[in-house]
């Protein structure tokens, strides 16, 4: 997918300063189902730099988890990954399962949503750390393993006196912190956190977000943080990518995106979030499409309040705006390059709103 650039090419944008740890180009993930392939991730491209946190947001079923797992090669049997996932220049998609397994842990980490069930109940915390360290760093002495593990746990606020305990002796928040410590003890360069706080209470959530925010400062870890909570993105992420129906529809600096959302979906998503300053309820009608059979043209057009006739037919290109934000919508595309309007056809810019009706029947 080509990106039309609005910024003068001579001036490199500030965020391009460091080489990305992870470069994803045109990545696709399919799930094979009885009803045919489900294209859960359909051509996404993004970069994550050292010490940077990228927030990944979007409604349920838009492919966020699939994207996160796809990067680590952890999609279930019966699925396929295509495109480029470059980890410091190596394309992970082309690696054998064994080579990939060696990189999971020391280079790639994954933190899950449900902390309660992610630790083996029959193994002490110490044993799970030992296993992890032994697998990837051969030749560590018992003493060194202990020190490294306690160090990682301490960073997450777990006292050393709890090292020999079993998982069931910890609360959900503590277990999540142990999971994070377990992912970080190997100092991976890149970590995916898939809704790490969704199952936790507000206070614990805030504590964990703080820990994750400290992480990039202290370890230079690149982090992709998947969440439903836009507040968390605003608070903990440098950049944000908004996903809809398998595409990234807008990405850029999170302050910029939140202050001046460009893509209609981003705008709608922000408006429908209930926050402390909410005074009226707003919602996006309908629900994300079935990815086995997505709509023609722009996938958001059946729900888009500013859709045009052409949107239902021609897929919009991605354009880079002056702010550095990239958006995939005809409105921004025409703004950046008015000549693109021709692609929509003669009456392609007429509003589409009059033609469609969405009932509760189609809601999520």
């Amino acid at each position, binding site marked *: 997918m080509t990106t039309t650039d609005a910024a003068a090419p001579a001036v490199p944008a500030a965020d391009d300063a460091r080489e990305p740890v992870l470069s994803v180009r045109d990545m696709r993930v399919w799930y094979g189902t009885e009803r045919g392939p489900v294209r859960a991730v359909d051509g996404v491209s993004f970069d994550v730099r050292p010490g940077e946190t990228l927030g990944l947001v979007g*409604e*349920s079923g838009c492919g966020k988890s699939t994207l996160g797992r796809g990067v680590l090669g952890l999609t279930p049997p019966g699925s396929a990954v295509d495109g480029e996932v470059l980890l410091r220049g190596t394309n992970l998609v082309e690696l054998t399962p064994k080579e990939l397994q060696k990189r999971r842990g020391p280079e790639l980490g994954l933190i899950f949503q449900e902390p309660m069930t992610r630790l083996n109940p029959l193994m002490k915390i110490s044993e799970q750390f030992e296993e992890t360290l032994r697998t990837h760093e051969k030749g560590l002495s018992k003493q060194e393993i202990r*020190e490294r593990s*306690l*160090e990682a746990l*301490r960073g997450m606020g777990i*006292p*050393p*006196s709890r090292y020999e305990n079993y998982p069931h002796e910890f*609360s959900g928040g503590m277990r999540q912190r142990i999971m994070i410590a377990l992912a970080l003890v190997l100092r991976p360069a890149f970590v995916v956190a898939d809704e790490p706080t969704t199952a936790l*209470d*507000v*206070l*614990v*959530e*805030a*504590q964990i977000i*703080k820990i994750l925010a400290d992480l990039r400062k202290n370890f230079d870890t690149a982090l992709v943080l998947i969440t*439903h*909570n*836009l*507040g*968390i*993105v*605003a*608070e*903990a992420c440098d950049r944000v990518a908004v996903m809809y129906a398998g595409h990234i529809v807008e990405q850029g600096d*999170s*302050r910029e995106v*939140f*202050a001046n959302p460009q893509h209609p979906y981003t705008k709608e*998503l*922000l408006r*429908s*979030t*209930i*926050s*402390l*300053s*909410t*005074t*009226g*309820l*707003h*919602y*996006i*009608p*309908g*629900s994300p499409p079935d990815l086995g059979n997505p709509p023609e043209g722009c996938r958001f057009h059946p*729900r*888009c*309040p500013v859709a045009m006739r052409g949107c239902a037919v021609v897929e919009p290109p991605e354009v880079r705006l002056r702010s550095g934000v990239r958006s995939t919508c005809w409105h921004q595309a025409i703004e950046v390059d008015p000549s693109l309007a021709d692609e929509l056809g003669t009456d392609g810019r007429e509003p589409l*709103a009059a033609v469609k*009706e*969405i*009932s*509760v*029947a189609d*809601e*999520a």
Partner: protein
Amino acid sequence: MPTKPDTDAATVAMDKRAEDPVEPETLVEIENLEVHFGLRGGLLSRMTGRGAGAVKAVDGVNLTLRKGEVLGLVGESGSGKTTLGRTLLGLNSPTSGAIRYRGEDIAQYGERQLRPLRRKLQMVFQDPHASLNPAMDIRTAVGHPLIIHNLVQDEADYEAKVVDALERVGLTPPERYLTKYPSDLSGGQKQRAVLARAIIAEPELLVADEPISMLDMSVRAKILQLMLDLKRDLDLTYVYVTHDLASAKFFCDNIAIMYLGRIVEYGPTEEVFADPKHPYTKALLAAIPEPDPNKAVPRDLPRGEIPDAARPPLGCSFHPRCPVALAGCGWEARDLRALLERRWLEMPVEEYAKEKALFADLTALGEPEVTRLSIAPGRGHTQEEVLEYLRNLREEGSAAQPREPFWSGVVAMQAEGGHVVLEFEQSRDPRLRLLPETGVQVACHLYDGTGDE
């Protein structure tokens, strides 16, 4: 009725607090309600009765619910919100206290006496997937209360009522849904069906236990809007159980903040949010991430996590996490252990090991409700060394910014017969009391005059 994807129609102006000049009648009054659960734990203690503990899921709650009000019960997991809501409807039997529904105390009612009231008191649960029987089609599921309470004459009557309920919750056209099974519906649609079932018997009070927390964020606003519409059309009273302060702020007239079975702050939503009084409420509000990056502020979070409800802290349950706790807030031996562990977290391993060796047995420090603590020095150490160490800690803690509140609760610390003995200030339970010149009740020593020393 199809919802047009039209911005104006979708944005619905909020009009929930239409001022009513006359004081509405009281619907439910709860007095000193306690709900205790016997502990699942030790078999032996269960048999012998020794140390047979109980979780005080609801521990002395007073509330008044007026007709047409939306009351929010807010708090962290395990604070007793669900238990309180269920007890209100007679789904749990209270250990003690009164629940007066229209003046009638139903607290000790049996199932038979409750049956006629059940129709008027309905509940909506968090998980819409679990609240619908997968083997029942929507027609049967939604109409079920009509059969239970014997509210229909014939088949046609039944059908008409179910269709009406489905229309009210926006499952239109109803014919499309009557024969569907829960597995054919999305999460939002299921929750609508659950709401239809809840309103079909024309209830007065609806307890909604986290009705939107399992739903996708884009659906949450829809369900909240539906609940507001239903309330307006059917003259309902709501108890809204949630841990999401943002939706509670929007949705509720009054709000009760719960912590470990007790209400710590209770009052009109606007007042509570504009000027939170209890340190716990303040912490909760500070913890909410704000989607507007220009408003986001760095914040101090309370340390630790919600304590084990089976072994609650002495005095004010919040004291181990409270940054401004006072001497009488309930300090005990366990807090010393927490303090030491926090300190040791910051230390290199060798120093930690050295300090830990001063103590013979840390587990003794973990016992609840110890207000006179005798500490045995570790092997090769004397009580003087331990005393010296603790004195240094106290000095550091009192000089620190912000000050460590633990030490204010230690009234005496001396060496005695080979041990170091710590005595803690007598604890006092903070009571919920109305703050002068406000509508807000708070349970905290900062506000009951006992705090200023």
